[in-house]
């Protein structure tokens, strides 16, 4: 039962190295350039040479891609001015070169220490993502880390063509602690990890159709899932947005008054909730007929 390192435990650089063809990664604005946040320096907070995001070119299955990985340990993977500008530049480069762009997300959203600059940066990156999509260049968000994709990065992830998640990944806007503060512990006990994951975790997101693949917490599995999506794109058309509108309306109507995520699971056709809870991502995917 020995296996490789868990994806969610790898560092951003390890993740990229494990995901792309060996030796193919060329980092853009690498650490020796020492492009570090002037905001953090002023606030007396340690800076990092990559400002919490590693970006570059690589090959995956011989195909040219652009790839970025956020460093969740560094200020929660949060997006500041430099961090965001690196991402924006990367997606623009991907659009220009018509090369797919893979984004390994691990971020709580906007970096508060940089104020509104981070917020605008995320909005700019979103625009760049849609530049790719307009050219049918695949944009793929991978969410399988400890921190997940929250806040502005949660929203940004939904702008990509596809989302690949592991059961460990979480996708949302407001985190459990914020919601607990707002609604009270009764409505959301943020220390109830099972509830937290059932609210925002990969399984629920996959079940509802917000994640396109649910894979093992393992770089190899993520690589396989990403490789399958590279050549595809999910065009934004009148037909597609109308279908999505219907789907989201139906979801809200069906489950808008549901508080227990287990009921959502049951409603989506999960028969044995206990077994499904313990199952690995792919096992879960196989057990459930997703309501798409």
């Amino acid at each position: 039962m020995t296996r490789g390192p868990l994806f969610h435990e790898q560092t951003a650089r390890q993740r990229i190295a494990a995901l792309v063809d060996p030796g193919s990664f060329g980092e853009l604005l690498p650490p020796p350039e020492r492009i570090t946040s002037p905001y953090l320096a002023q606030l007396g907070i340690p800076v990092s040479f990559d400002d919490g995001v590693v970006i570059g070119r690589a090959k995956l299955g011989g195909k040219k891609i652009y790839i970025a990985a956020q460093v969740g340990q560094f200020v929660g993977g949060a997006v500041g001015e430099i961090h965001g500008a690196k991402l924006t530049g990367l997606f623009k480069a991907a659009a220009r070169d018509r090369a797919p762009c893979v984004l390994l997300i691990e971020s709580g959203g906007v970096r508060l220490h940089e104020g509104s600059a981070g917020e605008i940066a995320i909005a700019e990156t979103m625009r760049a993502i849609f530049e790719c999509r307009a050219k049918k260049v695949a944009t793929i968000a991978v969410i399988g880390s400890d921190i997940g994709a929250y806040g502005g990065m949660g929203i940004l992830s939904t702008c990509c063509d596809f989302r690949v998640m592991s059961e460990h990944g979480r996708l949302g806007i407001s985190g459990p602690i914020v919601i607990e503060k707002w609604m009270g512990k009764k409505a959301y006990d943020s220390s109830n990890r099972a509830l937290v994951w059932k609210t925002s975790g990969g399984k629920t997101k996959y079940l509802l159709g917000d994640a396109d693949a649910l894979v093992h917490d393992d770089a190899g599995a993520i690589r396989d899932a990403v490789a399958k999506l590279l050549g595809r794109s999910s065009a934004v058309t009148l037909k597609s947005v109308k279908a999505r509108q219907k789907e989201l309306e139906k979801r809200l109507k069906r489950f808008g008054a549901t508080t227990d995520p287990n009921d959502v699971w049951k409603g989506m056709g999960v028969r044995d909730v206990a077994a499904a809870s313990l199952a690995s991502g792919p096992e879960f995917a196989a057990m459930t007929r997703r309501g798409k």
Partner: protein
Amino acid sequence: MKKPAPKKSTSRTLFARLFGPSARGIAVEKSVLTGYAQAGGAPVCVIGTCDGTYVDNAAALRLAAHVIDCIEKHPKTPIVMLVDSAGQEPNRVAEMLGLASYFGHLLSCLELARRKGHKLITIATGQAVGGAFICYGMFGDRIYALDSASVGLMPVEAMSAVTKIPVPVLRKLSKTMPSLEFGAKPFALLGGVEEVWSAKDDVPARLARAIAAATTEDNRAALGKKRGGRRLALDIAKRVLAESAR
């Protein structure tokens, strides 16, 4: 943090100030507005929020539905987005149902409109903070703000509460870093807002001019550099583009 109390009357006054009598074409339901009006003598589609409301799953869907309606029935009609929202409400059920995806859907609808030739103009009229600004307002081709609007990530006090950095330290730093300051003017210095409109301005005329001038090119990083509030973003994105082309 308390739920803001609705102030319907002021909202209507504001709509009238922006769109004149044609503001009647704007329907307001649970502080979410949708409709059609006139700007500069030409029809515009209007979506938005008022009363500092929260944008939830249902609100995002209503806004999206109206954008789709506009694309289908009124090709190339400019879309004016009014923003007065305190953000997304932290809510477990909303999260469970995928609030982020509802926002993503709204953004996709707006993107489709942009690609189909609709100009997107945002006016921050009241609160324009956090996720609610990101989920549609900041996606405009050009973004404007009334000088009375509260624009930005969050007030210094809130920032201090989360980052544990004392308020005086943040205030002092915000003198040289407008990014840390809260408000329409510092936000404009970052390039996040094209222009701040004051009470003295002829707002309908400015809106008409804004619609005419808008392009789909995202100019915010360039503005931020020019105005000195956000000096790094443009050059870094450019460097990535240049180095990746080698």
